[in-house]
């Protein structure tokens, strides 16, 4: 039995959370549906020992839910809009964002590729997708490096037009990115990605009772959402 959640389950959970949180209703029984969706990333975070993240996450959602509960009662209209807007933003995006973060943080590239190949997704889709997954944190690193370099040369927020600033950021970014691309493809050579034929995998990927449990919660939420929540299914 594997201890970690299967990548397929994680991606499925991510989709369900986003669908329910972004477009679902809030009041009535749907509060509990949302609560279940919010709880999923929290539990996974605890499971993966990301305690501080889980704490902040829980605190923010408590705050948001309490405020949403209160402001349904009559209140100054302008204030209401401001509060609802901020809480609305947080409650809509935080769960999905957190789940996406968890997917990226806890899934190694080899696990992801293995899972996708089990689903018989063609290689031309799997490899770019895996690279993408891996690449978001790299972009952040590069971005910080470029910012530092700019600061060192005294190019701050105040100097230059917007166009110039765009140029200052994109050009070094493009340079380093194309170098990274070369390095990555050299690395993939050593992993024999370009060899034809069936590859074997060392990463253990499989479903366990945990996957079943989380998927059951997600499917229940999704069913509620589609049949009673007036979901946007077209």
């Amino acid at each position, binding site marked *: 039995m594997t201890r970690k959640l299967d990548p397929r389950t994680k991606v499925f959970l991510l989709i369900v959370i986003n669908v329910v949180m972004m*477009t679902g209703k*809030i009041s009535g029984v749907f509060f509990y549906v949302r609560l279940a969706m919010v709880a999923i990333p929290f539990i996974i975070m605890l499971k993966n020992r990301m305690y501080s993240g889980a704490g902040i996450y829980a605190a923010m959602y408590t705050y948001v839910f309490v405020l949403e509960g209160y402001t349904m009662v009559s209140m100054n209209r302008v204030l209401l809009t401001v509060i609802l807007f901020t809480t609305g933003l947080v409650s809509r995006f935080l769960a999905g964002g957190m789940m996406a973060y968890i997917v990226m943080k806890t899934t190694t590239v080899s696990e992801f590729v293995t899972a996708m190949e089990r689903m018989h997704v063609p290689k031309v889709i799997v*490899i770019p997708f895996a690279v*993408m997954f891996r*690449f978001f944190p790299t972009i952040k690193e590069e971005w910080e490096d470029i910012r530092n370099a700019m600061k060192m040369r005294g190019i701050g927020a105040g100097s230059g037009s917007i166009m110039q600033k765009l140029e200052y950021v994109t050009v070094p970014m493009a340079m380093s990115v194309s170098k990274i*691309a070369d390095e990555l493809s050299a690395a993939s050579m050593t992993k024999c990605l370009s060899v034809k034929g069936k590859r074997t995998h060392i990463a253990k990927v499989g479903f366990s009772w945990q996957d079943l449990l989380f998927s059951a919660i997600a499917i229940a939420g999704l069913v509620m959402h589609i049949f009673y929540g007036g979901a946007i*299914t077209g």
Partner: protein
Amino acid sequence: MSKRLDVKDLINIGIYTAIHFLCIFIFAMLGFIPQIFVFAGVFEGFVGAIPIMIFLTKAKKPGMLTIMGILLGVITVIMGRPWQALIFAVVAGVISDIVWKLGNYKSPKAAVIVCGTMMLWMGGMGLPLFFSFRDNYLSSLEEGYGPDYVEVIKSLTPDWMFFVMIIIAVVGGLLGGLFAKRLLHKHFEKAGMTE
């Protein structure tokens, strides 16, 4: 040069799709300000065009832009948009691929047009606001963001606005393409980064 995609091409697709998506995503946040909600597409297109332009200097084989479209579509669906969004992205990819092929994978004019056509995938992002999805989405927004915000959004987005928003995004892409072309010429061709 072989026409088959090798691993290097696939890695390039992944990387530039990631950057393109991130650029768009950051500027999509502008869309929460109702007054510039409609025009956010220009900024998204403009900035998003830069990675595409650089990607085009490396995309010399058929199918690469289609794969990029498929990836973008999958991300939009993962982000909770209706599955029809996938169609928009794939169509955007295929159209871009055809245009790029007609430009022999090197014509600068075709590159600028591709920057525009690629932005068609943004149609999928805005989809929940329109057509049969509209009422449910707005009512859910009303509970979430308050009635005032929804009033503004509602008045801004009759159904025809969907097409206007796509066109705006495409125009943004074209402008961004022109800007990126100049950038490319100034920095990359001189440095010998492009063939």
